[in-house]
């Protein structure tokens, strides 16, 4: 069905999120919706499906004007959405999570037909390439698996219009490939699809049309054939940017910042051994659920280390908590799950940025956190990371996803640790911000001599930043790809080598 938006505007207190947007989405097309963080993409998606009511303008399907009061009405009209934020019922089974919005159809005499529900759910799970028992509680799944379940949920509505808001933000290449097959299938069936993503490679691969938003305004719509990466970026941010090419890091092979010797945390990570050199960026790559985050959290003392030893600068270290890890070992960890593990959504930006350094900002005598120094720190960081917000007093919960991610990183930049573990730094971040974040990570290693562990499922990101890559599979380290930047190995060679180690 043809989805037409005309003159949509939507304001939140203090922000005009959408300003007179008119776009038409044709059936049988995958239509990319692009823009910087905070450009209004999610808001537009929500306005289409009935979650937000636009202040002005209208949405029509095949020429018929819709007036949606809620998501339920949107669903009834044949529109479905994969939300940017992962929202699950953690105590429910996978099957029920998929079917929660349509339990009514499983109502029969004698009550809900669980068997039928499980069978149907298994079907949709298979379509997204997730081979899990639909009766498992969803709480134990990784972020990537949850995202796939959300996609399965949207599919199961059998809608005519599917809105995908960053469906690939937490999944890796394998799942992405599977998802793209699915999208092709749906496109061939004549489904209208809107695809929001910050990964331009994906957009170029899968989409037919591109629409770009900037500061809530519609900048333009073009067929993908006319576009390349540079042109898209120029449309998005209004200028050209230098695509990153960092070259080689000059890490000193002889100074070992962190050495892991058979580190094990039962059930989470087995027998991990590696060296992290001073001033290098060491990549952790692997499939979803491979145990990279678990190793990181074991190193910082959040999970118990059951066996093995850790040495920092040659001295054995023990940390029973993250606090100890920061204070004694100067090791920090940027979480991959900003919403649950990183941010205080009902607090302001300033507080979120300075939480790790309150003690340092404290006056020795009055025990008072110096508000002026705190403000300076936060303002400085806002500039350095180019955070788009009304000011440091804005609540983090009201920021767009990408800007939230910047805050989550800023907190750890402030902490000024010797070793920083950064887990999925550019989830949901726009190209501009992504290059800012990459530059920051690079400078940390290159200029400040910090040692970085980078966990990422984004292969281009990994290859452009990391000096060496450790490959993880099923809770073990299976190998190492070395000399990435130094020898100028082409992208394809590196990814082939990684693929071999993951097989």
């Amino acid at each position: 069905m043809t989805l037409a938006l005309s003159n949509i505007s939507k304001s939140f207190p203090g922000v005009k999120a959408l300003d007179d947007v008119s776009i038409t989405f044709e059936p049988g097309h995958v239509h990319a919706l692009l823009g910087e963080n905070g450009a209004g993409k999610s808001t537009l998606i929500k306005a289409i499906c009935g979650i937000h009511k636009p202040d002005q303008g209208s949405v029509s399907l095949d020429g018929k004007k819709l007036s949606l009061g809620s998501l339920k009405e949107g669903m009834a009209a044949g529109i479905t959405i994969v939300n940017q934020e992962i929202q699950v019922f953690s105590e429910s089974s996978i099957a029920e999570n998929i079917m929660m919005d349509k339990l009514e159809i499983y109502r029969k005499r004698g009550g809900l037909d669980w068997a039928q529900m499980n069978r149907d759910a298994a079907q949709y799970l298979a379509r997204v390439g997730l081979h899990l028992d639909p009766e498992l509680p969803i709480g134990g799944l990784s972020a990537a698996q949850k995202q796939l379940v959300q996609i399965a949920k949207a599919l199961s509505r059998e809608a005519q219009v599917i809105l995908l808001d960053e469906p690939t933000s937490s999944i890796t290449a394998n799942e992405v490939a599977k998802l793209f097959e699915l999208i092709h299938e749906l496109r061939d069936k004549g489904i209208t699809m809107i695809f929001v993503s910050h990964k331009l490679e994906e957009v170029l691969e899968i989409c037919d049309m591109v629409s770009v938003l900037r500061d809530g305004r519609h900048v333009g719509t073009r067929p993908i054939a006319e576009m390349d990466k540079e042109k898209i970026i120029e449309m998005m941010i209004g200028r050209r940017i230098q695509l990153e090419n960092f070259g080689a890091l000059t890490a000193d092979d002889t100074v070992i910042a962190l050495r892991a010797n058979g580190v094990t945390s039962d059930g989470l990570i087995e027998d991990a051994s590696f060296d992290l050199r001073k001033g290098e960026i060491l990549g952790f790559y692997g499939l979803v659920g491979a145990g990279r985050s678990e190793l990181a959290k074991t190193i910082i003392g959040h999970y118990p280390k059951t066996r093995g030893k850790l040495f920092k600068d040659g001295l054995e270290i023990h940390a029973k908590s993250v606090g100890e890890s920061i204070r004694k070992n100067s090791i920090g960890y940027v979480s991959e799950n900003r919403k649950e593990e990183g941010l205080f959504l009902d607090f302001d930006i300033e507080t979120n940025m300075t939480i790790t350094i309150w003690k340092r900002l404290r006056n020795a005598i009055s025990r008072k956190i110096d508000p002026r120094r705190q403000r300076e720190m936060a303002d400085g960081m806002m500039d350095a990371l180019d955070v788009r917000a009304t000011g440091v007093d804005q609540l983090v919960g009201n920021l767009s996803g990408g800007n939230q991610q910047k805050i989550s990183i800023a907190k750890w930049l402030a902490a000024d640790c010797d070793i920083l573990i950064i887990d999925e730094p550019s989830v949901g971040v726009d190209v501009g911000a992504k290059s800012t974040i990459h530059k920051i990570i690079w400078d940390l290693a290159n200029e400040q001599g910090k040692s970085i562990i980078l966990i990422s499922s984004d292969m281009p990101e990994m290859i452009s930043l990391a000096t060496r890559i450790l490959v993880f599979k099923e809770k073990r380290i299976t190998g190492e790809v070395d000399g990435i930047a130094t020898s100028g190995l082409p992208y394809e060679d590196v990814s082939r080598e990684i693929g071999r180690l993951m097989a």
Partner: protein
Amino acid sequence: MALSTLKSGKVITGADAGILGAAGVLILLFTLASDSFLTQYNIFNLTRTQSLYIFVALSQAVMLVTGNMNLSVGAIAGLTAVVFGYLVDTMGLPLPAALAGAMAVALFCGWFNGFVMTTLGINSFIVTLSTLFIFTGFVYGISEGYSYRGIPKEFVTIGRGKFMGLPYLFYLMLGTLAVVWYMFRYTVFGRQLLATGSNQEAAELSGINTHRVIMGANLLSAFFAAVGGLLWVSRLGTAQPAIGQNWLIISFAVAIIGGTALQGGRITAIGLFGGGLIMVLIKNGLILVQANVYFEQAFLGAIILLTILLDRGREIWARKGRKK
């Protein structure tokens, strides 16, 4: 029942087993400690009190499931009892009419709580704290502290009669728990209650009308409170304004010992059964073993705490194992 364990088809889950196990340990202890524990008379009284507790706990549990609470359950029970007494005794209405009238007042109370929570968007704690006072005010305003004594004999039989050595109330409780179990396992409304409590935002995004669900929970809560209040009337033989006064702590304690999650999304009918049993066992046992009278409350508290530790022991060990 946690949503997940439900679907596996098991009727007794790990958590339930812990609660029933704790109750079992108490039964064993008291049987050894006192000859009078397993007498027919004591069993009759234990099960009757347990049955009443279950209705009290249900009135709280159906609210907790949605992530809300109802501090006014006792006041609703008291109001139902007093209105029933007023209608049947002072006004001389026939029994069914008086029951219907009392139930209507209770449901109105539930509706009012729900209305303020959903439409006006005030936190359930504040709403029901206020209505706890409001409803209690009406209890005393209507009765002026007097009890209504003209309760029809056939109604009193419900609370006092027995069948095969066990009180009628016990069978009524079992039936009710079976319905509750069925509701949360097999009906859309039950699942929506759980979903709303588990993640209200996600529930809304799944097209669930969470306002309607929370209103439903309020009506159910008032319904169970009213039934509990009326059963107390039938057990006491008089409709007293003091009915419901001590429900606040009992309702939370039994619901939570019985495995209902305070933050919503979890309830188990079998757990509730165990929770009610544990509560009466502890109180009964304290008397049987003749604890020091002045320190009695301290023993009560200590045993509740130990029971919880016993029940959650498994879980806690598991967690410790993981962290260490």
